């Protein structure tokens, strides 16, 4: 059973629809005891970094998620903001992240200002990905895969081996990250047609 962590933000409905569509079984919950029992976890989310981290702490989910992911090796997939929450920190806010993957979440605006790049923010588009390493999540993804992105902050990995996919918006950034059983994707696989279906179905089969 896949448990989708409910932070009262964002369109969890689409994630549920996609999992059902590829034949997976899931439930949506923010109940610590339910999350403890999960065999797989998805951390979705849109909205702000601080707000999501505060929600995780208020609902007493932070420690449970860290324990599940690090010690019990439960497969965990962070989507969009959910991926950013896996990192150490974000320039969007003050709160510490979950720190499950050694990476930082940085601001496109700041980077664009420094590098004098003229791109609109948010990065809201279908974009290509380059798979940096083959694993169970990326296996058999189509060569021409494209995914739907909406974000104003991007992830930079401290260690190259945590970078699973790269995309380009003004410059290259990590569009997916990995560490053992922990995965994060910046794009929305639940809104990316057959390309997203393949990725979600890979996660369901893990």
């Amino acid at each position, binding site marked *: 059973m896949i448990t989708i962590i409910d932070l009262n933000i964002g369109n969890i409905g689409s994630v549920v629809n996609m999992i059902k569509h590829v034949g997976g079984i899931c439930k949506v919950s923010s109940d610590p005891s339910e999350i403890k029992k999960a065999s797989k976890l998805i951390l979705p989310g849109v909205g702000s970094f601080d707000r999501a981290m505060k929600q995780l702490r208020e609902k007493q989910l932070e420690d449970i998620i860290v324990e599940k992911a690090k010690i019990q090796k439960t497969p965990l997939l962070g989507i969009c903001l959910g991926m950013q929450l896996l990192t150490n920190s974000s320039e969007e806010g003050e709160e510490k992240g979950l720190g499950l993957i050694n990476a930082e979440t940085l601001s496109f605006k700041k980077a664009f200002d420094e590098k004098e790049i003229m791109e609109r923010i*948010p990065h809201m588009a279908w974009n290509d990905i380059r798979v940096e390493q083959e694993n169970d999540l990326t296996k058999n993804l189509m060569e021409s895969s494209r995914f739907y992105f909406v974000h104003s902050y991007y992830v930079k990995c401290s260690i190259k081996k945590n970078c699973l996919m790269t995309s380009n918006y003004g410059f290259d950034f990590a569009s997916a990250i990995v560490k053992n059983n922990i995965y994060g994707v910046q794009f929305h696989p639940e809104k990316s047609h057959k390309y997203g279906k393949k990725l979600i179905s890979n996660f369901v089969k893990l």
Partner: protein
Amino acid sequence: MVRKRIIPCLLLQNESLVKTTRFKKPSYIGDAINTVRIFNEFEVDELILLDIKATTSKTEPNFELLKDIASECFMPLAYGGGIKNLAQAKKIIEIGFEKVIINSGAYSCNDLITQIANELGNQCVIGSLDVKKSFLGNYFVYSNSGNQKEKINPFQWAKELESLGAGEIMITSITQEGTWNGFDMGLIEKITKQVNVPVIAHGGAGSNKDIEEVFNLNVNAAAVGSMVVYQNKGMGVLINFKK
């Protein structure tokens, strides 16, 4: 490579889809769910649904229908029509839509866009303006499905929508809508230069050439109506999508 989005824009009237010309003469296209299912199979970039009756008839968005639509779609979805408050916007996002489109609601409730942006994030709210060109070539904004002329200048209003928190601006030319005559390039160019968030151009697309031309104006997306629901100008209904 970042791809510019081509977005079918579908008009809801009750449970049916219709297509208008200059916001008038709605003509029947088909059943909403079936049509949306076809666009999902075409793997379109995104889909916009506008309920053109909700505001004028003072009804709520048809949440049941939207729920059915969301369950058929694996692409980004935006909905506009009759959204008056934050609770309605939240409900639509929870159903599985990515974005809500605020047009009339922004004139009557000044901080509606701000409330939605603060709660759900800027990327969830599209500020939309319907613009008519007068005989003398001046531009005016209209609310309530093109029925009510507003006092504010469109260029000022577009900037205002951005500063209120809209993460995207949708510009619809009432004068071009449903005519197949191409986008109002002057209008779209001027607004696009003034805002920093992504822009969706809408109204008048009749060919791929029209879309290419509007993409040269640095817009991020083109919304298309007639082109994807009719076989050709003056011809019968044919749901289609050629890239």
